[in-house]
């Protein structure tokens, strides 16, 4: 079955009185990789499980391709899932794990084994067919789980925080492999994570969830550069939140006064007056005290190898700063000037 699109129409899921997902609508295009991103308890995993059919919505409609699958049980949906814990069957060999879905749907063992071997080759895992899952490393288990889901050639492939059990180094490698696989095979993939850098790295589009509703949906660059509110700004990477005063001076341009600083940036349709402003830590430059009108005092300093992290007290509030000049660290108590690069300063629409 070719990759299919997914559509949610006003889907709600209640557990007793509590709404885990509260009226969510979105469309995921076929052959795209979409990430559901949000803090724990925001409803992202519930959405994933409703796509799989492991939970049925309280109200609303779910479509996969053209078909309404709202009431169709999981076993009858053309959807596969890679679980956070991998959920490999501990009593079955690697080959039996991957063949399981095929034999359940009535294929012979020989047929199933053949397809399973080719799926294992697709994920780059050969020669381990007869091992039991407990005899594999974490990365290998991950690959088996992906192969097991892939072998059914599902219309939709789901990943539930697939990298959370891997160490940092392996995580990057696996996430690149998943993206590569998705592009190569033209799969529709929905991917749940709470790690924004993972989401930014792999996604065509990201759906940011907060408190059971969608906070913002868009391409990765869009979400990072133009967050709709302070929650999205804060969740998509670090952000210092300060207050500033906006003055519009044209169709799109505006000026923000931040204490003694004045910065030109798009006003994004926000009315004049006092507003919230998000400042990315990497957009802040620390210069000589006399080189900037905004003075600051270094309160904390941490050496991270490739960058320095500072907390600087200023007139507009304490600012968290990521600074590239590792060779000339600033001491705690040093007086500095604070300069801002316009690309990392974002006017937040009032919520």
């Amino acid at each position, binding site marked *: 079955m070719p990759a299919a699109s997914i559509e949610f129409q006003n889907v709600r899921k209640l557990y007793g009185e509590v709404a885990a997902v509260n009226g969510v609508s979105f469309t995921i295009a076929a052959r795209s990789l979409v990430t559901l991103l949000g803090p724990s308890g925001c409803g992202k995993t519930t959405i994933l499980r409703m796509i799989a*059919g492991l939970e*049925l919505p309280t109200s609303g409609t779910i479509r996969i391709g053209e078909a309404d699958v709202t*009431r*169709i049980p999981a*076993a009858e949906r053309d959807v596969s*899932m890679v*679980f956070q814990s991998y*959920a490999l069957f501990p*009593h079955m060999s690697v080959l039996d794990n991957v063949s399981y879905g095929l034999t359940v749907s009535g294929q012979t063992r020989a047929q199933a084994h053949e397809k399973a071997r080719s799926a294992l080759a697709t994920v780059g895992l050969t020669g381990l067919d007869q091992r*039991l899952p407990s005899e594999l490393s974490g990365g290998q288990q991950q690959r088996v789980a992906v192969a097991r889901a892939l072998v059914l050639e599902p219309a939709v492939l789901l990943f539930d925080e697939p990298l959370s059990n891997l160490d940092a180094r392996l995580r990057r490698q696996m996430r690149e492999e998943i993206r590569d696989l998705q592009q190569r095979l033209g799969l529709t993939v929905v991917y749940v994570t709470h790690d924004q850098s993972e989401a930014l790295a792999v996604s065509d589009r990201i759906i940011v969830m907060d408190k059971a509703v969608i906070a913002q949906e868009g391409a990765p660059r869009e979400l990072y550069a133009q967050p709709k509110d302070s929650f999205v700004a804060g969740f998509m990477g670090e952000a210092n939140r300060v207050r500033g005063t906006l003055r519009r001076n044209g169709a799109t341009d505006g000026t923000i006064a931040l204490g003694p600083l004045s910065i030109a940036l798009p006003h994004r349709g926000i009315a004049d007056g006092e507003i919230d402003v998000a400042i990315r830590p990497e957009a802040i430059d620390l210069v000589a005290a006399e080189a900037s009108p905004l003075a600051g005092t270094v309160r904390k300093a941490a050496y991270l190898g490739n960058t320095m992290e500072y907390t600087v007290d200023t007139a507009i509030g304490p600012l968290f700063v990521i600074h590239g000049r590792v060779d000339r660290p600033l001491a705690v108590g040093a007086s500095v000037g604070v300069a801002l690069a316009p690309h990392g300063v974002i006017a937040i629409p009032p919520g």
Partner: protein
Amino acid sequence: MTDRRGAVAFWLAVGAAGFLVVPWYALQDSVFTLGWVPHFTAKEAAPAWLQATTHGRVWLAPLGALLAAVALLLAPGLARTLRANALIAIGAAGFAYFFAQGFAIGPTGWYLDTLGAALPPLTGGQYGMGLGAVLVVAAFAMLFAVGLAGRGFFKGDAFVAGSVVAVASLVVVFTFFPVFRILLSAVEDASGLFSLPAFHARLTTEKIWGLGCVVGQTRCGVAWNTLALALLCATGCTSLGLAFALIATRTDFRQKKLLRFLTVLPIITPPFVIGLGLILIFGRSGLINQFLEFAFGIQPGRWIYGMQGVLLAQVFAFTPIAFLVLIGVVEGVSPSMEEAAQTLRANRWRTFVDVSLPLMRPGLANAFLISFIESIADFGNPILLGGNFGVLSTEIFFSVVGAQLDQGRAATLGIVLLLFALAAFFAQRRVLGRKVYTSLAGKGDSGLPTQLPDGVRRLCYGIAIPWATLTVVIYAMAVVGGFVETWGRDYTPTLRHYVKAFAIEFTPNGVIWAGAAWNSFWTTIKLAAIASPLTAALGILSAYLLTRQKFVGQGAFEFGTMLSFAIPGTVIGVSYILAFNIPPIEITGTAIVLIVCFIFRNMPVGVRAGMAAMSQIDKSLDEASTTLGARGFTTLRRVILPLLKPALVAALIYSFVRAVTTVSAVIFLVSAEYEMATTYIINRVINGDYGVAIAYCSVLIVLMLAAIWLINYLVGERKLGRRAAGAPRLATIGRNAA
């Protein structure tokens, strides 16, 4: 694929077979002997459609009409929701009507006169339900479940829906209905009419609640006897169990393995072994009395018979169970807690009193309540050693089988006993509900358990070692007793008792099982072997539904499957007699009633073992299986069951062993045709034929050990790679066996 027409067609076929082909009513002989085939038009053996058309039992016709309506739903073009709704309606209607007609119309027409007055008279009545009726009602229940699944209940899984409906219906029929029936009997007077005064008179009688013994006159009521015995027994068992548990975990006692073996003993011990052992030592012709008479000329007394004897036997029998509960708790007290106390300058005594003991308190409460429940439900020891000392379980027995034959009285006593048991059961669940093993964190605990303070250690040894020795002596007596002529008079070694019970003659015409015990022996094995897999299957299935599925009414479902655990065996026995002696469900005197009784009494253990095992299996395994296209049944068979082998073994062993050793419920349900080993033994004991009784007990122990080995061998181990295969923890299953 998703319209479920296959499932509908299957269950329609089952229902049609039940309605059109096989006999509707129960036959004298088993329906599977096919003796009915030549007479299948006869009044007794006809299927339902013939009963309705030619034998005047028109009230069966609507069932056929409903089944015919199901056939219409097989039309291919039908909308899914319409079909599902129709199935729900027809299934529910058929199910309800089936029981309505069953309970409304008895052998002689309308059961209730009020119904008879309002409705037209019937031509003849009906008998107990047979195979046809069972198939039809099963079909209606399952069609109802298929409909529910089609509407999206139970996540659309027809297997899960069907299982829930099936287990719930069975529990209602075989647990709730008998309990309801016993309540009903208690409020009926002698002529079967509702009468609160009769109930009041029975309930408040001096015989139950009298306090004569306190002021030194006559005897006390049986309710007080039961309670006093249970309290003493629970106190004794808990103290002894604690002493053993402390020795096993907090001393360098060398024979700890031996202590562990003690925990398995009560599980494979037939109910009379300890009582018989005590009689052989303390009885009139027992060793002690013999010695006293020989040495000092003291006339042998009957002092072992009475409360003290029953208490002694119960404490011997149930201490291992208390030990089993307590060892888990004592081991669960994290050594780091005690080490923390010691680094805070507490000495060993203070550590023990201030830290260890309080942490064990919930476990002590649990052990106390479990021993309490065991004691009030016990039947074997009081009947053997009680003498004039009556308790509720034996009084119930005598009300039914004795000269009194007063079912109302039996029912009333049963209710009192049931209330005691339920109160203790709920108290125990509350204790367990609060975090018992508070110090058992998920984190790895290193460190060694603190050694006991010297005084406590000496006390524990002082209590436990003599007791353990006595236990060994009792079991030894119980074995030796089978090999001597007559205990107390003639100690000549003999195989006479074994020959009498288990003689086999090899004649030219074949082998003759000449021994007197063979009949009950084979019956016991046969029924236990039938009941055990069914019990395990039902228990594991219920556990699967409780832990792996979510559905409305799950709490009630769990309560239902666990309830029979709290009901003492004698109460079950009486309630089964009351409930299943008359149509529509007329199965007393058959093997079915015994099997059903075994299944529903022992199922809770399977549920528990299954739930404990399943809680260790990651739920995403099921979900992975589901997203890979497997339905509930496939997942259960290919993923869960292979991982559940240890629990399966435990459930199979337990249900087999319990079926062999149980006496309290079956004593009401056995018949001449189906006599069980335990009831045979008790009859030998009543006749004073101790030799045969003891010989039989020894054979049963061997039989059960063989069965345990066989089950382990048949089910096999699970393979999980490097991880060691989990051995079945038989011992933990025995806990809480009421």
